[in-house]
């Protein structure tokens, strides 16, 4: 029920506050009544025919970067621990976790 799907804005009709978006290749008309300042090319979260919010590409990239770091770091740490690797191995995990 609360599912919202990312879609890219293809065109905007400022007179009606409507936009045409591409939802995984499918074109759809949605309302922009809930979000100010949307531009063509932006990604928005679409729910029941409305854009709820813009998606931040910077934050999206940062989340993925963190995920990769978490995954890689801990895989290393786990491996390192079993091989009794040098002391500095687990430290980044500690520092990362303490932020």
């Amino acid at each position, binding site marked *: *029920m*609360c*599912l*919202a*799907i*990312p879609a*890219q804005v293809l065109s905007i009709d400022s007179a009606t506050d409507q936009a045409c978006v591409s939802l*995984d290749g499918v074109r759809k008309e949605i*309302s922009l*009544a*809930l*979000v*100010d300042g949307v531009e063509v090319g932006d*990604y928005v*979260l679409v*729910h*029941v*025919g*409305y854009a*709820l*919010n813009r*998606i*931040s*590409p910077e*934050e*999206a990239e*940062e*989340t*993925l970067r*963190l*995920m*990769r770091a*978490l*995954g*890689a*770091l*801990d*895989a290393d*740490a*786990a491996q390192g*621990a079993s091989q009794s690797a040098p002391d500095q191995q687990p430290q980044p995990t500690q520092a990362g*976790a*303490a932020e």
Partner: protein
Amino acid sequence: MKFVDEYRDSALARDLARAILAEARPDRDYRLMEFCGGHTHAIFRYGVQDLMPENLRFVHGPGCPVCVLPMARIDQAIAMASQHGVTLCTYGDLMRVPASERQSLLKAKAAGADIRMVYSTQDALAIARAATQQQPAQQVVFFAIGFETTTPPTAVALKTARAEGLRNFSVFCNHVLTPPALRAILSDSADEVARIDGILGPSHVSTIIGSAAYEFVARDHGLPLVIAGFEPLDVMQSALMLVRQINQGRRDLQNQYSRAVSPEGNTKAQALMRDTLVPRERFEWRGLGWLPESALKIADAYADWDAEQRFPVAVTPGREHEGCECPKVLRGLMEPTDCKLFGRVCSPENPLGACMVSSEGACAAYWLHGRSRIPQRTASASAT
């Protein structure tokens, strides 16, 4: 699909699973409640539970607006259609939810009531506009349901109807608020409270109300909460963040879903909601009972568009199916498979409770994605 596929990468999922395994302490349990039905759905659909260590369990919460809507409200909607002859428009999710006397919106429609499925409040407005041309006396009621995610579109519809002077349109408002429900679960009486160590906070609800709305969880209940996106990797990363917090004895509010959620949320949508809707003194939630200030009704300035005032109906309180354990399932006190009716008489084809109707309900999720895993789980549970 951009902003979707990246968060479903299986190699990264394995890395995250290994990271969680490495960090989860073998000497303790981690019970993480996912509040949102969207999370429940993702956990089952992508088999996230299977990637978790044995001692980390997801506990399913009440976060599915369809599942928590009491039967009486559906009875009321059906009565509006049958007694007042209104055209009732609603989202598809509601059509099959059981009402009293083995009724549902779908059955009422088959029996002749004018009930239509819409995708958006814009569609409901369009139906009302068309009616003013063709059958001016015909009244159109939008049966509004949903958490804070789905509420702003209703607010826009009310504003639009008033601006256009659309007199044959009104809203039957059933919007409910998530913070009071979460509060209710966390402060349940001691013998009934589900043991929870951390919470995966709402994703899309938070895009509207902001992550700061959940600060009370850490402050008042001493539990860590991570606002988590709906994709499987989002859920896994959030689980890892919770495990870390629990290990370190921290109880912070963190936001994993920062690509869509800010601390303050969507202030434009909030203003629209404030203009058109006001808190109800109390509202009944299926499974949680009557909760104060937990739902919204239409503000006085929009009374002309309030279906509850315009089309009053009397309904006798609906009685839920006797054996249905939805209330316990919704509070994280019981697993769907512990319900005697699960799979025997209750299935998505013949749902006895709302948790089996909605794809975001825990019972439907277990039925659709978890059946193969159930014997395993029972075996391991009885072995301990």
